[in-house]
């Protein structure tokens, strides 16, 4: 049960997103199909339906590419500068291209593409930091950051990316040695990372819902 703790958080986040969907803005609305995909994917993983050649690494690799595309698009959509978004798009294209190169030529299709994943999570970390830098410099005087949904969503992505960087750095070396201690670590880190990410995403959905409600209340006054 505890091994699959992250799945329950994904499920929880999905339901929060579903319940608040009508009040979410355009940037957050795309989380619903994404979370639906994540829930289905993780369920298939738990049920071992994704095993192929005794591994689900191939599936993980593809899922991490979808994840990086989605989160990068989400973070860049929070920025209004077209030039910046274009640059982010180019970097994303390079990372995705490298991920496929890693999958086909470097680490292989049935092995975890940890090199690509380290780059993916590093890129997410940098993007979130840039977003925060931009938020600090161009912050609206009336902005209450504690109740600002994009802040919580990006905080979740930041912790998620940071938690996975060192894990993936050591993964190739440790996992294929079948080290028991690393197996424990492989259980704990993704659980903690998912717990933080999906909790903060849920907080973001709830704040978005509250914000939309308060705007409606002001309009009806």
């Amino acid at each position, binding site marked *: 049960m505890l091994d699959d703790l992250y799945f329950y958080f994904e499920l929880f986040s999905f339901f929060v997103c579903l319940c608040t969907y009508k009040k979410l803005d355009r940037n957050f609305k795309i989380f619903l199909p994404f979370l639906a995909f994540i829930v289905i994917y993780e369920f298939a993983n738990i049920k071992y339906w994704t095993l192929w050649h005794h591994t689900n690494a191939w599936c993980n690799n593809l899922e991490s590419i979808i994840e990086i595309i989605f989160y990068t698009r989400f973070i860049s959509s929070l920025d209004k500068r077209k030039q910046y978004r274009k640059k982010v798009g180019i970097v994303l294209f390079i990372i995705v291209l490298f991920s496929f190169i890693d999958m086909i030529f470097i680490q292989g299709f049935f092995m975890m593409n940890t090199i690509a994943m380290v780059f993916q999570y590093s890129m997410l970390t940098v993007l979130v930091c840039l977003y925060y830098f931009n938020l600090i410099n161009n912050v609206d005087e009336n902005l209450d950051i504690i109740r600002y949904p994009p802040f919580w969503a990006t905080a979740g992505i*930041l912790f998620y990316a940071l*938690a996975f*960087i*060192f894990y993936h750095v*050591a993964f190739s*070396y440790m996992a294929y040695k079948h*080290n028991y201690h*690393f197996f424990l670590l492989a259980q704990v880190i993704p659980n903690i990372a998912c717990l933080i990410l999906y909790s903060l995403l849920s907080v973001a959905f709830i704040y978005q819902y509250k914000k939309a409600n308060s705007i409606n209340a002001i309009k009806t006054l």
Partner: protein
Amino acid sequence: MLFKDEEIILLVIAGTAVVMLLGVFIISFLLVYQKKQNKNALEKEQLKSSFQHELLKTRMEIQEETLNHISRELHDNITQVLSFVKLNLGVLGRNLGEQEKIRVNDNRELIAQSISDLRNLSKSLSFEHISVMGLVKTLEIEAERINRSGIINLSLSVEGDRYALGEQRELVLFRIFQEALNNALKYAQADNFKMSLYYKAQMFNLTIEDDGVGFEPELLKDKGGSGLRNIVNRAALIGASAIINSSPGSGCSINLSLNPLVQETYVNGTYSNSPG
């Protein structure tokens, strides 16, 4: 080899913990920074509003000083000269025939009327009379003077047990009345002007109504209604709220309410001879 594996695991744990702490630091920094920025913005806003308040106070102080100076000049100079002219005419009249005496006496009466009017005008301009006589008495004198002139029909009603609102508040309320009266005469072409004062235990209300041509409510937002904005600003200066209602053809009503128990700092402040 096992030792080395454990070292790597420790490295992964420590590394992950460190980067997670870094994440916590980034988030905390952002929160603290934003809090500080909000605080600064609030302080800036407060400074701006306090500056505006001071500016308004100074403006009104200067205005009061000018009005007081004019009032003194009227009282001490012009009325004195007129009194001297009246006295001289009296002396001159003694040596004239009956026909001329009547003419001189008529002129003396006219001068006496002018002196009386100038004295009343001087009283309405000076803050000293309000501090001595109080708001209600001053308004009564003013109403009598206006009604006597016949330019407008002014009615004044006072309800409740009268109490002193403080020298400066009463002066500001009197100046608001003057501004409203000026508007009614100058722009509204009103025939009737009604003033009602309600003295309640925790609330003082002043209602000013006229039956003039009225104006579009949008005028309050425009630069054109500077007199009306003056009323709102003056009211704010004594901690009162002013609501102005009007529409074309239905006159204008100004409702001022203030809590007499709440003492604004400047009311007990150092400016004893001005509203500021």
